[in-house]
């Protein structure tokens, strides 16, 4: 599935393993609210949670299913599907933790691991500080959660961590709210089998490596914005 939304002011065609949510009127209105610097934290949380829920629902659609027949209360047969394969969530701290709630709303008892990656001041490279992942993760589909994909540095690091725990690359679904083409390029050129699911692809990065027009620092706005 390819991207099917028209991005603001520029054209960028992402690789085929990137999935963009359909840009409905509502989604566009939601994005407008969370991008507005005058939006207060309560509204920011409420409306970004709504987008996250849509992202999670879309992400779950990329998990495999098998056909299943059931008998309905009226005694008729219904041919549907049942979910196959186990999942777990992994959030990249701190912003990624904001997406855990949305995942839990869809999958009540989902296991969630955490990864802390920060920029090393000496080398300017992302450095792994902490990783706590659920046991048996190597047999599960992993929904990797990080709201912003800018340069892709920490995402690549996190994916490397997952791979080192034995997770299959094609079983990783990377969910994020806003992605920059540079980040998508960096991640997909290194890992061609994982899927990226995003709600919007922005113009690009500025000289400070912030996504533009973006929405600022997601973690700050979700957790500490005045």
């Amino acid at each position, binding site marked *: 599935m390819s991207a099917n939304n028209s991005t*603001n002011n520029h054209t960028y065609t992402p690789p085929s393993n990137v999935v963009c949510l359909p840009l*409905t*009127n*509502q*989604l*566009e*209105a939601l*994005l*407008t*609210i969370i*991008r*507005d*610097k*005058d939006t207060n934290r309560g509204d920011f949380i*409420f409306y970004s949670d*709504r987008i996250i*829920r*849509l992202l999670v*629902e879309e992400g*779950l*659609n990329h*998990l*495999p*299913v098998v056909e*299943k027949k*059931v*008998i*309905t*209360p*009226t005694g*008729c*047969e*219904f041919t*549907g*599907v*049942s*979910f196959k394969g186990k999942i777990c969530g992994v959030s990249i701290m701190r912003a990624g933790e904001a997406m855990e709630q949305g995942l839990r*709303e*869809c999958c*009540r008892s989902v296991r969630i691991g955490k990864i802390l990656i920060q920029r090393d001041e000496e080398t300017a490279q992302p450095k792994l500080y902490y990783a706590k992942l659920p046991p048996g993760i190597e047999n599960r589909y992993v929904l990797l959660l990080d709201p912003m994909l800018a340069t892709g540095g920490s995402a690549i690091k996190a994916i490397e961590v997952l791979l080192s725990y034995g997770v299959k690359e094609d079983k990783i679904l990377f969910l994020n709210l806003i992605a920059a083409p540079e980040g998508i390029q960096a991640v997909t050129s290194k890992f061609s089998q994982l899927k990226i699911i995003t709600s919007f692809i922005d113009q690009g990065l*500025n000289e400070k490596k*912030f996504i*533009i*027009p*973006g*929405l*600022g*620092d997601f973690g700050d*706005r979700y957790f500490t914005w005045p």
Partner: protein
Amino acid sequence: MLEHKKNTYFGTQGKSPWYRWDGTKFDCYIVGVAGGSGSGKTSVSERIIANLNVPWVVVLSMDSYYKVLTSEQKIEALNNNYNFDHPNAFDFDLLLENLKDLKEGKRVEVPIYDFVTHSRQPQTNTLYGANVVIFEGIFALYDRRITDLMDLKIFVDTDSDIRLVRRLKRDIDQRGRDINGVIQQYLNFVKPAFDQHIQPTVKNADVIIPRGLENLVAIDLITKHIQRQLNERRYSFRWELLKKIDYNEELPKTVIVLEQTPQLKGIHTIMRDRDTQRDDFIFYSERLASLVIERGLSEVTVKDHQVTTPLDLPYMGKRCNEKICGVSILRAGGIMENGLRRVVKDAFIGKILIQTDPTTGEPLLHFAKLPNNIHDCYVLLMDAQIATGAAALMAIRILLDHNVPEDRIIFLTLLATRLGLHVISNAFPKVKVCTSMIDPKINEETLFIEPGVGNFGGKNIDCIYLSPTIEHETLNSRIITILHIQIDTTEHNHLYLNDTNRIINNLICFSFNFYIHLIIIICANFLSN
């Protein structure tokens, strides 16, 4: 006649459809009852209602339509010098407007007249959904424009001495007035008004009832006449739908079906499985509801809107300026309310209770409580499933009666049949319907969707609703439903129908049945001895 008589509502059972399968309406039946002060208009109206025994009857009193007095007139009124018994004391224009709307089945705001300050109170009584309106007042047959709206015009003719006696008794006993004042008022105003303005309207009447309430034969005849006319309008609704609509045609353009993704199919599989536990069922139906609501909301119009991001860059986006109102069709539609609140946190919520008559299969309206500003809102109508579409039609009809434009209604549902979708678009082609899946068949005997999900309400709501097989239990669950609604909506001030009355009535029925059983048992014992 200075005391405000409250307009009364009689809604002891559900209201059957007041519109045809193509969405057009039957007019409401209006009865006018006129007569001099103290002639027994109110008692006659009440007796007609008791004899009629049909639901959703409204008595509208002319007392609500006294004009607002100026300050000089107020002083006159204080000194017993203002003529309340003259046609000029009434606001016939407002009355005409309200009666016209009632006739068309629309929602009406009836003024509440304050007899202390002689002005209208800021709040109003909201009337909606009457099958029969009995309009009573001394000048009920005075204005030609108003009598033209009436299906039956009655004049209650009682001897003037009896009327005077009643008036004396009422004013002295109940209103604490002195005998001289009452007689003065009678001679100055009441009697001349009767002779000049009220008595002549007798020629506008279809029927004259001599002796008022005592005349049981006349009241009985009138009731039978009304009943016969009402019966001519009734017809079998749901079965009619099955016959009239060809549902194999292409789906209407207003129907939106969610993309059939693996997750959606998976959720449906869990929900349809008869072995699924109740908590799983609730969890997945709420998840599905969220998806349907998000999809439905994206049909609401948005406008361009520019904002500045925290990086001080402009972003051209969209904004939704519409007020959103969710209306759930109880019980099953209630499961979608949570989903709506999750996405539109300040949505107004209205509720409509429609139940199926177990003997005829017809939808019956029991209760409707909608926000006052609903005509300004984009309305999301919610029900768990659309089978024949009969309940959906009724709910849409109610919204239109409340002046919601047809193209600003979106019906959200978890499961629909082709028949139901065609029924809706046939009657209301501008209403959009958003469903997560379409089932092919409806069982023509049980009216269940096949393969279907079973009964949503039963699975989803508290187990007290689970098996309404015994009549008593049905009654009980109804009472509980009504109580629930009362608790839910206490913040809304106006009332549509007297809920408490209904509960009490149901309780009386309930205990009555109980006593009948007891008596039968006692008789049986007696006989066998």
